[in-house]
C-alpha cells in the first residue's frame, strides 16, 4: 500500500521521476499507453487539437495522430456507445466525458451495455474501456460542474470505479485502468488537478510542488486496482476517504492533532475490504468522508460493510461526513462542502464515545 509502489513493473520501465501535477500525470499516463499499445484510442469533446478543457490530452493528437486521439460530436451516449463498439472490435478506447455531471446521457450505454457485455456474451465480447471524467466540487462549479456521481456507478455490477488523490496514483491507476479488461469509470477530482486542497478555502491555494506524491516516473508503471493507500497511520480512528476528501481529512487531523488511520480507497469497486477491516479492527472507530450527497451515497455501503464486518470491534457508531442532500449550490458552496468544520465535529463525536 506504499504510495510509491513500483514493484509491479521494472524500475527501468518506470524511468526517472519528476514533478508533475495531476493533469500532467494523467497526460503522461495517456502518452505512455498510446505509445505502448497501438489499440489504445482516445476520444471525447475538445480532447484532440485543443488538448482538452483541462489540458489532460494536450499535445497527444500532434504526437500520436488524429486517428488515435480525436474530437467527437457533443453526444455522451454516442461517445460511450462507439467506445463499446471499438472494444468489440478489439481496441482499448479511453473516452473522456468533459464533466462527470454530463455523463448521464451515456448511462444507458454504460449500465446496459459496457457493464454487461462480458456477462451477457459469456465472455465472447468485452468492453475494455476507461471512461475518464473530471468530478467533484470546491471550484464554484455550481450544479453542473461539481457533482460526485460515483454511487451511481458503484451500484452497477460489471463496472469498476477508480478515483485517484495524488499525481503519482493518477498516472499509475490510470495505466492500470487502461490495461484492465473490464470497463472502468475513472473520476478525476478536478479540485486537486493543480494542487492538494485541504478544505481551508480562505487560505491560499497550494500546488503539488515539493510533495513526494507528485514525483511521477516518466515511463510505464502501475498502481494496482482494488488496493487502498494508507495516507497516515494512527490509533484513534479510521477515516475512509477518496479524491479531494483525502487531503481535507488529513489537514483536519493535522490541525486537531488527531492521530488517524486515513485510508485513501483509490478503488471503490472492487474495494480493498481487507485494508478497511484491518484498520477498523485496530482503531475501533470509523469515519467515512465523501463530497457526494448523503442518502444512498457510497458512504452508506462503506458504513454497512464496516458495521457488518467489524461490529464487535466498534467502540462508536460509524459516522458519515458528506455533501448535503441538495443539488450542488453555487453561492453557498462552502456551506455545502463537507469541509474542516463538519469533519472536525464528526471526529469529536466519534472520539467522545
Amino acid at each position: 500500500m506504499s504510495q510509491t509502489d513500483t514493484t509491479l513493473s521494472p524500475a527501468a520501465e518506470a524511468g526517472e521521476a519528476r514533478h508533475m501535477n495531476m493533469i500532467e500525470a494523467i497526460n503522461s499516463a495517456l502518452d505512455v499507453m498510446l505509445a505502448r499499445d497501438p489499440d489504445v484510442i482516445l476520444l471525447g469533446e475538445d480532447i484532440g487539437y485543443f488538448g482538452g478543457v483541462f489540458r489532460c490530452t494536450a499535445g497527444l493528437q500532434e504526437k500520436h495522430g488524429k486517428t488515435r486521439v480525436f474530437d467527437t460530436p457533443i453526444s455522451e451516449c454516442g461517445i460511450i456507445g462507439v467506445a463499446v463498439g471499438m472494444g468489440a472490435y478489439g481496441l482499448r478506447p479511453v473516452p473522456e466525458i468533459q464533466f462527470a455531471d454530463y455523463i448521464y446521457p451515456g448511462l444507458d450505454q454504460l449500465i446496459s451495455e459496457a457493464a454487461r457485455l462480458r456477462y451477457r456474451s459469456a465472455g465472447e465480447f468485452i468492453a475494455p474501456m476507461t471512461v475518464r471524467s473530471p468530478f467533484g466540487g470546491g471550484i464554484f462549479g455550481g450544479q453542473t460542474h461539481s457533482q460526485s456521481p460515483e454511487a451511481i456507478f458503484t451500484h452497477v455490477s460489471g463496472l469498476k470505479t477508480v478515483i485517484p488523490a495524488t499525481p503519482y496514483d493518477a498516472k499509475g491507476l490510470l495505466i492500470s485502468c487502461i490495461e484492465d479488461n473490464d470497463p472502468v469509470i475513472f473520476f478525476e477530482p478536478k479540485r486537486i488537478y493543480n494542487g492538494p486542497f485541504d478544505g481551508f478555502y480562505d487560505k491560499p491555494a497550494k500546488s503539488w510542488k515539493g510533495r513526494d506524491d507528485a514525483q511521477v516516473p516518466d515511463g510505464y508503471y502501475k498502481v494496482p486496482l482494488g488496493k487502498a493507500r494508507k495516507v497516515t497511520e494512527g490509533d484513534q480512528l479510521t477515516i475512509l476517504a477518496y479524491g479531494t476528501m483525502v487531503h481535507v481529512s488529513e489537514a483536519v487531523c493535522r490541525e486537531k492533532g488527531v492521530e488517524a488511520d486515513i485510508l485513501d480507497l483509490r478503488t471503490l469497486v472492487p474495494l480493498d475490504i481487507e485494508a478497511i477491516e484491518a484498520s477498523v479492527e485496530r482503531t475501533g472507530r470509523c469515519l467515512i468522508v465523501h463530497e457526494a450527497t448523503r442518502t444512498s451515497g457510497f458512504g452508506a455501503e462503506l458504513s454497512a460493510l464496516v458495521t457488518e464486518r467489524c461490529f464487535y470491534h466498534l467502540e462508536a457508531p460509524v459516522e458519515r461526513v458528506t455533501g448535503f442532500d441538495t443539488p450542488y449550490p453555487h453561492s453557498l458552496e462552502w456551506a455545502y462542502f463537507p469541509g474542516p468544520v463538519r469533519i472536525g465535529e464528526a471526529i469529536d463525536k466519534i472520539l467522545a464515545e
Partner: protein
Amino acid sequence: MAKAGKDQGSNRPALALHVPEPKYRPGDTVDFSDLNITEPGEQPRPDEVCEARETYPLCTDLIRVLGDDNKAHGPWDPRLDADTLRRMLREMALVRAFDGRMYRAQRQGKTSFYMKCTGEEATSVCATHALAGDDMIFPSYRQQGCLIARGYSPVEMINQIYSNKGDKLKGRQLPIMYCSKRLSFFTISGNLATQLPQAVGFAMASASKGDSRIAATWVGEGSTAEGDFHSAMTFATVYNAPVIFNVINNQWAISSFSGFAGAERATFAARAIGYGIAGLRVDGNDPLAVYAAERWAADRARSNGGPTLIEHFTYRAEGHSTSDDPSAYRSAEERDEWPLGDPVMRLKNHLIALGEWSEEQQEAQDAELDQLVKDAQKEAEKNGILGHGLHHPFATMFEDVFEELPWHLKEQSEQAIRERAIKWPEGPAE
C-alpha cells in the same frame, strides 16, 4: 399549465395537439391501395460512391426488383445465380420453420419467451448474403435470419432459447438474445437501439486500423425514435464510418403503429439525407431488392464511400412476441391485405419462373426443414428445457461479471451454493 381563461392569448387561434392514429383498428376493413407501391424495375441505381444527396429520390420511392410476373426487373436486379437463390430460399424457409416450432415450444412451457420474424425473413437472410462473412452484424432481436444465413446451428439456438446446460450463454440471457463472435454476430441487448452507435464504433475502429471489415446494424422503425439513433447517425457521418443501418419498418412497434416514430411526415430512409448519409428505401419482402440494396451499401462502405441507411419496408405478420396479442390493437385483415406479399413465396415463385425450382421441391424442402428443426429440438432437449433442473452450475452466475471474481462476488457465490443445499437437498452438489 392549463389555459387560464377565455381572454388568454386574445384572438389567436386555438392550438390543437395531433396524436397519431393508425388507419385500421380491430374489426376494421383494410384498404392499402393508397400505399402507392411503385412498379419493379423503375428505380434508378446510382453509382455506389455517389453523393449522399443523390439518393434522395430513392428515399421516397421503393426499390423493387421482383414483379407480379415473378421475374426480376431493372437495374437493381442483382443477377444472382440459381444456387444462391435456392440457398436464400432454403434459409428463409428454415427461419420460418424454426419460428413455428419455437413458438409452439413456448406455448408448451418449454421456455419463457419467443419472438418470430414472420414476413421479415428476407430483411435478415438476404441482407446477410450481401455482406462478407466477417463483416460485423449488430442485430436487434428479430434477426435470427442473419444467424441462420451464416450457418449457425439450430441446436445451439434452441439451447439458448431453453437456457439449458448446453446454452453457451450459460442461461444468463432471455431467449433469442443470441451471440456468436465466431460468426461476427454481436451479442443482442434488450435495450433498444444501443447497437447503433456500437456498430458505428466498430466501423470506426476497423477504419482506424486500415482493416477491410464493415459493420451492419439492424433496428426496428419504432426504435429509431431513441436518442442512440441520432448519435449513431451523427457519428457515422462525421467519421464517414463504413457502416450500414438497416431500419426494419414493419409498421408496428408492439401496439404502436409507425406514426409514433414519425412515419406520417417522412419516410425513415429520408432521415438519412439530413445527416448527409446515403438512403435507400426497399421493398423488404422482395428478396432480390433487399440483397441488391445491402450489396450497394456494402460496396459503398467498403470503398470508403461512407454509411448508408436502408429502410426495409415490410410488415410484422405476427404478434410482437409470445407475450403479445395483436388482435387487441390492429385489424386481423392487415396481414392478408399487405400489398407486398410474402418474401418466401415471392422468391419461390421467382425460382419456379426461372425453371430452377418446383412446387414439389418446395414441398419436399418444407418437410425436410420441419424434420431438421424437430431433430434439433430433440437434440437440444437432451440438455434440458427451462426450469427442469438441467442448467449451468450455480457458481457460473457469478462468473464473467468481471474478468476475475472479486471478493464480494466470491462471498455471494458461496452463499448461493450454501442455499442450494438447503433448497434442493436432492440436487447435484454444485
